[in-house]
């Protein structure tokens, strides 16, 4: 399971050439941006739901993202940013 952590450990370690380092850095940046921006929230939700029961029914991405935004409607304190 790679949903937690930065998912880099699971990959086979390439020889430490400049190119592999660059790739590794690029992968880290991609992972970081997806995590911070929230692209990965759905994957995490599915992973979480399926962790105990691989057959668990999950929402489609569309429905999940809709629910997530609409929750802010119900309680605007979620995700409030500062002055």
């Amino acid at each position, binding site marked *: *399971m790679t949903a937690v952590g930065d998912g880099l450990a699971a990959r086979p370690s390439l020889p430490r050439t400049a190119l592999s380092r660059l790739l590794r850095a690029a992968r880290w940046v991609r992972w970081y941006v997806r995590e911070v921006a929230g692209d990965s929230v759905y994957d995490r939700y599915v992973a979480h739901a399926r*962790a105990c029961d691989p057959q668990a029914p999950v929402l489609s991405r569309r429905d999940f993202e809709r629910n997530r935004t609409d929750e*802010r409607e119900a309680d605007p304190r979620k*995700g*409030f940013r*500062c002055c």
Partner: protein
Amino acid sequence: MRSVKPHTIAIWTVVALVGAAGWAVLAVSRGEEVSAAWLVAAALGSYAIAYRFYARFIAHRVLKVDKTRATPAERLDNGVDFHPTDRRVLVGHHFAAIAGAGPLVGPVLAAQMGYLPGTIWIIVGVIFAGAVQDMVTLFFSMRRDGKSLGQMARDEIGVVGGVAALIAVFLIMIILLAVLALVVVNALADSAWGTFSISMTIPIALFMGFYLRVLRPGRVTEISLIGLALLLLAIISGNWVAESSWADAFTLSPGALTVWMIIYGFVASVLPVWMLLAPRDYLSTFMKAGTIGLLAIGVLIALPTMKAEAVTDFASRGDGPVFAGSLFPFVFITIACGALSGFHALVSSGTTPKMIQKETQVRMIGYGSMLMESFVAVCALICATIIDPGLYFAMNAPAGFVGDNVQAASDAVASLGFSITPEQLQAAAHAVEEESLLSRTGGAPTFAIGLSEIFSDAFGGGGKAFWYHFAIMFEALFILTTVDAGTRVGRFMLQDLMGNVYKPFRDVSWKPGLWLASAVVVGSWGYFLWVGVHDPLGGINQLFPLFGIANQLLAAVALTVATTLLIKSGRLKWAWITGIPLAWDVAVTLTASWQKIFSDDVAVGFFARRDQFQDAIDAGKVLPPAKDMDDMHTVVTNATVDGVLSVIFALLIIIVILDATRICVKAIRDPASTQLKETPYVESKLVAPAGLLATKEEKAELVAAGLGSDGGIRRDGPA
């Protein structure tokens, strides 16, 4: 005692020396131009020492963070709200949530007293007050499953203190929104370029919202990049629009902009979140991260020279044109966010504590993020102090003082003891392609001028005009997002309150209640915005101190809750950690309130001015800067309203502190009687490093858990 390696000692000695050298140069330089590099050195050196030693001491000795104790994120993990989040991701989330326009505005205004007072407070304040508040609040909320500050106040202090804290939060929100909206109005007034670029953010956001809702749900990064590209296009095309026949349509007076702001605030807050707020939020977060990063790098590359004096005469005389009052307490009130911000306590209690992986990470996330915010404030101060002081005062003094042409402005600046020629003022405006820069109060334009100098020096690209409008866009964008989000929060609190009277109000999907509550909130901040725009004495000059007092008051509430909790949990001997910043903050806030209410100086005291202008009205006279009797009545009304608000703020803080003192005394007299509302201990099964980089021991622990990476992975998990 564990042994300390020689190279560790060497590194920290160097860090200490760098910081000390920075402070030394700032301290002894007088009457000559100092490089901003010294300011950066003093800041970064001090931050490093404070983070390594003081924050560590608080985390381990005072709070006693426990890495074996499961956090709410681990215990209540639901994959959505509660979720153990990688510390490096969470620090990004937390920083994005606390950093806003505040630390960019306050230091710019405080620059009227020179660069030194602001610098000292931003650095010392963050180390001993602001970052401590953020970290301690985060810790206590984490120990209570992410309870909000208001709830903690009610649970741990009492109903009276809790309700007072709640009312304080609501009032502060109103003033905050009014002041931020005023900053935008002042930045966009009579600027076709700026107004066009900012209004383009609405269709851009609508498009992004549609994309995320219908076309490709959840693909935040790709649409944000598209949005950013469109945003840059909007900034560039603003220049074309400003030179075209459309220019008139986008050249709006402050009054017209106010009306637009109020309409926008209402419509935005009743539209569904996905349409405008969510996409704007993504856009402003990306923009914020990018600009702040660029600014830090730009300052380090350009290393500009500061042209402002270290300490101006306004510091002791208290008659500065930007804001009235002497150094103590008004520098501390004005800087607010960059050193100590009560608003952060709302973020530190709420979202972040529900996502933290390990108790030990509160230092990095709470304290560390606030140090970064403080550095943003330092950069803003640098932006304000590298520009010519004459230009600074021409831009930041109220319109009634500066006058409406460059000659009058040049004379007005000369009367302050600084000099700038009318030609120089004209050239400065021309360089950023604005009609005029006179009395562009609110901090944003000054910051933008400084930033455009740094960026065009460090990166080139498009020249000053582009970077100026880029900075204006950057600030206006997230202020508008805050106006929308803040109106919603205010509305939510109001609905909750009105629900006590008439039940349906509490139902957030009941449209009439929603619209009414939104209208009340928008009407309230809209009133202060209107007043601020039309105040002959200058809106920022009048309202900013109120905003600062309100913000520092909220910090006092947070520090009071923190101190009460330290005492209630049997840590009386460590109560000074939050007790001293609290005492200082209360002294500052109450002194400022006292002066605003009782001072005989008409520039400072609201009621003194009310009397002065009322007497003049009775005698049939018109006092400058008022131009007619209408202006005179405006001054009287505004002074009265602002004065009453000052009284309410002061009373609220006194109530909270008295109520908290009662609880503390009880806890000290009879420790057995106190009840802590802390969640019981549950053993943690996560392995995760505490700081940014895993230490040798932490790496060994991760390897022992069969992980090898530096993430936080469930020991017994399906990994």
